[in-house]
Every structure is written in structure tokens, then in C-alpha cells.
């Protein structure tokens, strides 16, 4: 039987295995260290000592009042338009605390859509959304300041406003 008569080939097999095992043992330690290094300083302590309520305040931060306003004033099927700047390449590129990007995902199932800031464009988007949609505007870049025709403010905070779009038939 092959294994019953170890020869040079078996010795080579074993040498390969030893080399791989040694390298992998080293790689194990290195991977564990790298994995821990990716977390910010002090996060391990915070992981065990910070309550969920404190995490909520820390991590949601400026997003929380926005989320609460969206949840309080809109229904789950609402369409919330959140204008963003043309220079933004993605929802999460917003400079102001990633507010649009975060609120888009965290406020789901309400849809929070980023559109560009040209007035004609985002108003056109609102018109295209469908006659039966209830449309809201989450303005976090001041696009509605001085241009709030057909808009009714329902909530506001530092740097943001939540406004309902009033339909031609008078319903918002």
C-alpha cells in the first residue's frame, strides 16, 4: 500500500505540508491583527460598554431627527425626494454627514431618492412620480429656501426641512 511504504515522494509531501502549515499559522495571526486594526481606537471598549441607546445617539447622530421626522410624517409607501448637489456622484458622497445616503437606507421602506438640484429637474421628478403618489421633499441643502411654492413644511431641524408637495387638487 502507498502509505505503508513512505519514500522520497512522501517526504516531499510532508515537507510541502509543513511549509504550508507554518505559513498559514503566521497568516492566521497576521489576519487577526489586521482585522482588529481596521476598527477605530477605543471601539473595542465602546463595543462592550456603550448601550444601544448611546450607540443610537452616537452613530445616527444628525440622522436621527431626520429619520424620526420621516417616520412621523410619511407613510411607508411615501416617496421622499432628497435633492443633492450635481457634484455628488453617489448618495453617500454627500458632504453633510452622509445624511441623504444614510436616511435613504435607514428610512426604508420609504423611498428617499437623491436628485440633482436644478429646480426644473427635481420638480419634474415629483410630477413624473405618479398621480397617486404622496410626494415629500427632504431638503438638506437649502434648495427650497425661497422656492417653496406648492410645498408645505411639516418638520425641520438644523440644516434640513421636510416638506409635502401640494397637488393641484389640493391634497399633499
Amino acid at each position, binding site marked *: 500500500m502507498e502509505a505503508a511504504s513512505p519514500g522520497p515522494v512522501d517526504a516531499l509531501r510532508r515537507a510541502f505540508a509543513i511549509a504550508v*502549515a507554518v505559513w498559514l499559522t503566521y497568516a492566521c495571526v497576521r489576519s487577526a491583527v489586521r482585522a482588529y486594526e481596521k476598527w477605530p481606537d477605543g471601539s473595542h471598549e465602546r463595543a462592550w460598554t456603550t448601550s*444601544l441607546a448611546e450607540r443610537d445617539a452616537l452613530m445616527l447622530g444628525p440622522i436621527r431627527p431626520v429619520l424620526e421626522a420621516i417616520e412621523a410624517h410619511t407613510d411607508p409607501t411615501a416617496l421622499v425626494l432628497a435633492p443633492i448637489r450635481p457634484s455628488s456622484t453617489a448618495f453617500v458622497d454627500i458632504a453633510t454627514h452622509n445624511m441623504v445616503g444614510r436616511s435613504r*437606507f435607514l428610512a426604508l421602506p420609504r423611498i428617499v431618492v437623491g436628485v440633482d438640484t436644478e429646480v426644473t429637474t427635481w420638480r419634474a421628478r415629483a410630477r413624473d412620480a405618479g398621480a397617486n403618489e404622496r410626494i415629500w421633499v427632504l431638503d438638506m441643502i437649502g434648495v427650497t429656501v425661497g422656492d417653496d411654492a406648492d410645498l408645505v413644511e411639516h418638520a425641520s431641524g438644523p440644516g434640513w426641512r421636510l416638506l409635502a408637495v401640494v397637488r393641484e387638487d389640493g391634497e399633499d
Partner: protein
Amino acid sequence: MDSYWNALAACGAQALYGAIALAAFTRRRDLGLHALGFAWPLVCWSLGALAVGASGALLAAFDLRLTPTAWAPPAVVVAFLLGAGARRVTSPDAAPARTAPRVGALWWIAAAAWTALVIDWIALANYLPVFQGDEASIWAAKAKVLFSLSGDPGELATLLSSDRLPDHRSHVHMAAYPWLVSLLQAHQYAWAGEVVHFTVRLPAQLFGALWPLALMEIARRSTAPTWWTLPLVGALVLAPIPLRGLDTGQAMSTVIAGVVLLVFARTLDRRWRGGVEALALLLLVATKPEGAAIMAAWAVATLAVRVVSRPATERVFARVFVLRSIAVGAPALVVFAVHQAANLAWGLEHHLADRADSTSGATHFVTAFVNVMTRHVFAFDATAALAGLALVAFVLAPARRRRSATPLFAAVLWLCVATTYYLVLATSPYPVEWQWVTAGPRIYAHVAPAAVVAAFALLAREPDEASEPVRSDGGA
């Protein structure tokens, strides 16, 4: 209010459903704890997840509000049916397996160290709410839609299939994906009574904690020495990508778990092998589209084992083998078909099929192949080289060990899945390099455990030279 108590209650309920299923499956007082070893928690958690998922889908189908009290009764019934059904599934592989694991203190120390590490890691990962990536825009998004609109007839289908604005994707990105992880998250919401952001990942994170334990159990059952198998397992579970499966890339953990369960089933007594295989296939197809590819690979790997190990007097496609293979795969095929039918009814398409391939060509195949080799098979600056080294080890193993069932199954499974992923990425309508950076590391992590198990063949001992009693069919 987000609370660990709500999350633990939801997880406890899921574990309870799993235990009920295991009671029906094993009909043993210890619920199979002794027979399954370190893999017991993963089998239990997977059965519980399937019970939660299937019962949640039923509640949603009947437009019932998702609450713990509404969820529990059908979950218990589904759990019992899952376990009782799994008991009746016989593996197509008739080879006997003696499954006494090696008793080694090192494995217990490794398991304890891993458990401590992942508890810390989960506490860390829950420090950050997830608001981007697939987890947010696919699984969490679907869970939020499902939970918030439950009990509201018609809204779910409308929202899923609707791109609410021209030129914008549906807010539930990749709506055609399977639902299991979303249903697990919706279960967390149901117990919390609202959409929560920190603890909702626990049910999927725990898959990431448990599949390494199951892999350790496979290693314990190998006749290869611990000094060889432990670094392989350790490098895999500590590799950056799988470890990240505990936080933002959680959905891949369920797929890795399915692959590990498929391989683990090879080491089981044949009475339970078929049931665990069927469970693993269900888990895979209910989690991600890749599950279908892995199920096809399972069929090929099973056939390969059959070709090599069948009795000389039997045909390869003997009637019993074919019928038992179909029986193992049938539940997963039904779930796959139901899911595709729902997508068809809702007008949903997989994102790789929803636009014409205008950019890919022969260069895609070359670029994708180079990516496979340099980033996921032989990336020596990272533990990703583990897969390549493991497969080299399998090739270098004595021919007899390569032909034994478990390593052969694992090697063929790896090869088939890896080839399928390669072909999908090489023919993707998206830019190949972007596709690779986005999906490559995650999907190649799916099958890395299979490569590890294949590598056990290199130093597996022959039965007659092992000091312990003869173990599983393949010795690996």
C-alpha cells in the same frame, strides 16, 4: 426601541424552532448533539432559520401582520415538518461512515477561542448601523418593506416591482434576490415591534460564527494530523473576507454555511447524511442566487463520488442512486421554482439578466481568469492563497486519498462552483474589473471551505495505519 433583549428573544425563538426540527430529525434525547459535535449549533441554527423563513413567507403570502405571536405557531409546525421530512431523506451515497471524531484538546481550545473572538466581533460590528452596500439595499431594505407593509394586501408586490421614478433603480435594489436573510431580519423587527438598526444583523451574523465550528468538526473527523488541519481551518476563519462576514457582508455567511454543511454531511452516518444535504441545499437556494449554482455543483460532485466509489456490480446511474439524488435536491428545487414563479409574477429580473451584454468579449474571459488566479487562488500576500495551496495539496495527495469520498467531493464542488462563478463574472454585462472588485472576494469565499477539506487528503492516514478506529469513508 432597539434592545438586545428583543434580539435575544428572536434568536432564542429561532434556536428553539431549530431544536424542535432536530428533535424530529434525530429522535434522540440529546437532539443529535453527540453525533453532530461542533456542527450541532450550525445545523440547529440553519433549521431554525428555514423554519422562520418558510413560516414568514407564509404569513406574508396571506397578508398577515408580522408579529411574534402570529409567527410562532406556523414556525413550530414548519420546524417539525422540516425535521420529520429530513429524517426520511436518504443520501444517494451508500458508503458507510463511522463518525467518531478525534478527541483533541486543541480543537476545544480553538473552538473556545473562536467563540470568544466572534462574540467580541459581533459586539464591535453592531456598533455601526449598516446603511450602504448589499446588506442595506437588498436584505435590510426588503426586510423593512416586508415588515412595514405586512398585513397590507397588494403593497409588497407593487413596491418590489416598481421603479418609483424614471432612471432610478427600485429602492429595493436587486429585488429578484431570494428572501431568507430578509425574513430573518423581519423576524427581528417583529420581536422589536419596529424597524431597528443595530441588533437586526444578529441572526445572519451567527451563521458567520457557527460555520467555522462545523468546519472544525470536519477537521476533527479527519485522519490527517491536527498540526496540518488546524492551520488550514484557522487561516480560513481568520481570513479577512470570511471574518468580515460577521459584519457588513453578512449574507455570504449563510452561503458559506451551506457549503460547509454539504461537506460536513459527507462525514455523517448515512442515516443522517441525506437530511443534512437536503437542509444545506435549501439554505443555499433560499439565500442567494448563487445557491442554484452550488446545487448544480453538488449534483456533479455527488456523481463524481458515485463514479469512483460505487460497487463494481452497479451502474453509475442505478435507479436507487438517481431517485435518492432527486429526493435530496427536491425540496431545494421546489423552493427555487416558487421563488422564480414569484419573480415572474412580480416582473422581477436578476440584475445580471436585465440588460444587454454590450461590452464583454474575449478579453473578459482572460481578465476574469487572471483575477481568479491572482486574487483568490494564489494571492500570497493574503490568506486568500489558502485556496490555491489547498488545491495543490489535494493534487499532491496519494491517488488513493484523492479518490476517497470526502476530499473528492470537496474538490469537485470547489472546481464546479469556482468555474461557474468565473463564467458568470466573465460574461457579466458590467465592467469586469468593477464586477470583480465588487463581487469576486465575496463569492470566492463561499467555496474556500471546500478547498480546505480537499487539502486534508494530503496527510490523511490510511485506515490500517491510523492508531484510532477507522473513521469516515474518506478519512477526511
